[in-house]
């Protein structure tokens, strides 16, 4: 099997932030019981992106990650999340 270039994946896992709770692997609809799982166990229990082409960009892993360690790049940036309350948006922009 040829080696995949993992750096070219659109899913990034920040290993410094990751606490190895493995929640992403449980949430991801394309990992549990899938033939070509998006995530696989890596060293020290850290998730590793094994088959990025299986990803359906549902963003479950990014939103469910307790340590905000996962970033999924999607092309259409405008429709990623529903709009929040204007006050909340302002608060999140001005908070330190």
């Amino acid at each position: 099997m040829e080696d995949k270039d993992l750096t070219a994946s659109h899913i990034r896992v920040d290993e410094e932030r990751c606490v190895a709770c493995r929640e992403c692997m449980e949430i991801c609809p394309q990992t549990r019981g899938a033939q070509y799982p998006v995530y696989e166990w890596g060293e020290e229990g850290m998730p590793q992106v094994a088959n990025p082409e299986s990803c359906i960009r549902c963003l479950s892993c990014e939103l469910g990650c307790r340590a905000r360690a996962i970033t999924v790049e999607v092309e259409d940036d405008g429709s990623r999340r529903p709009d929040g309350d204007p006050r909340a948006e302002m608060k999140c922009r001005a908070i330190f």
Partner: protein
Amino acid sequence: MRVAVLSLSSCLGCQYVLLSMEEYFYTFIGENAIPYAPFLLDQKELPEVDLLLLEGTVRHGDDFRRLREARQKADKLVALGTCACFGGVPGLADLLTEERMMRMRYGEGAVIEGAPQGVKRLLPVDAYVSVDAFLPGCPPPEDLLQGFLKLALSGTLPSRLGATVCSECGVTSPPRTREGLRRLLSSVPEAGKCLLEQGFICMGPLTRDGCNALCPSSYGVPCGGCRGPCDEALLPPFQDLKGETLRRMERATGERKEVLEREIKDTAHSFFRYCLAEPLLRRRRPGGTATLLRRLGGEGRR
């Protein structure tokens, strides 16, 4: 720059962090004019200032008048501490009636003469006036406040793309033991291992980072959420601190949500200790604020 410190109803803890900045505090008072800071100077009137650090929250009419005056006189207003940003611990007062609080604290039939009228519902200060920057924390960590002040005094009010306490936490996740819900009073957590996975209620996944996760990683105490909710918790699709934490607890303990809910004796203190007053977290609940407070064990204050 003219910098003032004003406190509304609060414990004054955030002001003391200014003093605990050690050497930087001398630089701070040396390079800036401090015309008003009641804990340092005997000055009665708030003059016009460039930067106002505001701590505490609006608890009664008097606080509201001072807040409005402060907004008019300050060029830039900074909400310092979780009380100003999210309502903080005083927000829990919404669970009780005014009479009950007086009775609990001062005994049956106690009256304070000339006391200003209390607010019906507690709200963070940005619900009353516009706020230019927020620095939550109960109290904010010294290095964070120092970094904030350095940037703010150079002219630009800083903001920071935040993550969660878990992202700074140094623990590792143990294999789940599924022993059910655990409490610090009755069991000792294993050091260096994720407290949430061990069955303790830890608010780390939903709390703003910046504290270096001292409580869970250094002291072995579950995060109480003193830095307030993280960005994701304030924006859709979440805005549900209790539901999100229970979902994770369910996964960690192997108990059903309903069982956990029954076992958790004080839901308000467990999940909303520092942000019960935040309207964004109340509004999305079915039935609105009054129903949410009643469900959390409140007395149905109108």
